[in-house]
């Protein structure tokens, strides 16, 4: 079953085409890694999937439901901000720079949206948060403020915070790029655990080891378009298109 699907989406910034007719479909439980050179449009694609960027053409579907618009008389009409917020609940997003709320403790960060948006009771939200912090190995940091945590710990909190909404899909935009090298593996471990538990994930990354080991499928992008895609092992060891070969030769 398809969880999230981008169908022929295009995106421009000031008449500069950043995504050109891109399609991507992710099945339930699948982990897809997005690879490609800087400026290829990977972040933009991820942000479009989450409706953080408005599209110029095409559409995004979550479990078959059109996101951000309703169709009427053969035209698309934008949904209200409130309805868009409601659709976003089901899509988790982890950012390169963590973006934890600095004025809240780790626990408060994690329960903020479940209590505020899903109207869970504090008790229930806390119980779930404790489980999630356990999953990312940070149960002892529940009452710490983000500023007192290492980058790797902050990113694991960010993952737990997204998971607290029980999303149908998790989007990761270079989750380890801002980390010191020795902290990368703890975050990748947490993500691997998540993939093994059957979470549907789309991951933009430059960590080829992670792509090879965890991804089911790799999508290679360049200049705002999908150049090549296929099963992870095959794509990484035996790419067919020259652009992919060049890129892999440089990063591996």
């Amino acid at each position, binding site marked *: 079953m398809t969880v999230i699907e981008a169908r022929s989406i295009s995106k421009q910034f000031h008449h500069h085409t950043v995504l050109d007719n891109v399609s991507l479909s992710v099945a339930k439980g699948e982990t897809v890694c997005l690879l490609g050179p800087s400026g290829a449009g990977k972040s933009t694609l991820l942000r479009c999937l989450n409706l953080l960027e408005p599209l110029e053409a095409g559409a995004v579907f979550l479990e078959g439901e059109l996101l951000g618009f309703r169709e009427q008389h053969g035209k698309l009409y934008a949904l209200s901000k409130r309805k868009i917020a409601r659709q976003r609940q089901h899509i988790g997003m982890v950012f390169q720079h963590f973006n934890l709320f600095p004025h809240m403790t780790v626990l408060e960060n994690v329960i903020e*949206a479940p209590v505020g948006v899903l109207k869970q009771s504090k008790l229930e939200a806390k119980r779930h948060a404790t489980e999630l912090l356990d999953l990312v190995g940070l149960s002892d940091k529940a009452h710490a403020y983000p500023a*007192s945590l290492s980058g790797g710990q902050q990113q694991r909190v960010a993952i737990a*915070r997204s998971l607290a909404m029980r999303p149908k899909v998790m989007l990761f935009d270079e989750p380890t790029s801002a980390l010191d090298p020795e902290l990368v593996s703890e975050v990748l471990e947490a993500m691997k655990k998540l993939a093994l538990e059957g979470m549907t994930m789309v991951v933009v990354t430059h960590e080829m080891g992670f792509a090879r080991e965890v991804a089911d499928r790799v999508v290679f992008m360049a200049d705002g378009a999908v150049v090549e895609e296929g099963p992870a092992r095959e794509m990484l060891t035996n790419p067919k298109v020259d652009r992919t070969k060049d890129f892999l030769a440089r990063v591996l």
Partner: protein
Amino acid sequence: MSYVIGVTQEESVPKAPLREIPPIARQFHVWRLIGAAVTLLIAGSIILSLSQNEALNWPVIQEFMFQERVVAGLRLTLELTVISMIGALILATIIANMRLSPNVVLRSISWAFVWFFRGIPLLVLLVLMFNVSLLYPEVSVGLPGQTPIWSASSGDLLNPFWAAVVAFVLHQSAYTSEVIRTSIRAVPKGQIEAAESLGMTHLRTLQRIVLPQALRIAIPPIANDAINLLKATSLVAFIAVSDLLYSVQQIYASNYQIVPLLVVAALWYLIIVSIMSVGQWALERRFGRGTARLGTTVKAAGGKNR
């Protein structure tokens, strides 16, 4: 070259641990000490001369500190400050958000508001509001061209106290809206994106994520504004509202103890400003949660039960 390096290393390496490193001597800054002594001397003689000055008349100051009219004036000053500041904060938040809106009409109106009320002197605005009935003698509610549903003369609606409140709110919100606007813009965009990606609505993001972080930045300048406003309320003496200063003036107009009574007013302003500074400190602590890298690892100020 390598030979030279080899020699120096051989000589210095075994020697270093043998020598004990002496403690760092305490430094005396002669000029700093002289400066401190002179300043102390000057300050001391000013205080001494003040305490012995007949015109100051400490017994009179003591007598009037808690005199009925003074206390009533003080109360009015506080009411004026608190009501005006609360009104200004609400209006300023609205003006700031209008200024940040994508809508050009809202943005322009907000800009014009700030331009106008920051541009005219507070005293002019105050006297203008006091005389607003000259501009609009009557206020009515209803459709244009029809007989009004409700109407009243503006002199009845806006007594001098409320005229002053309106003037202070308009004046202060023009300034404070700029503080709030820059503080909101100082919150990183990633914070808003993180909140929105969690499905939080625009309003909720503003309430829970943006404003608490913006307030941390805004508290010192807003506390400054509040302190300024407290002192600026003394301008109501011009429109005969009996605040602290006006009451004191009324008293010395009859007993001629001008200096002691002005000292009474000054002391009260100082006391209130001191209390406000303590409030500022507490607020900074409250909203500064999570910002210091050290010392706030566990809970800071008063969040035990959250």
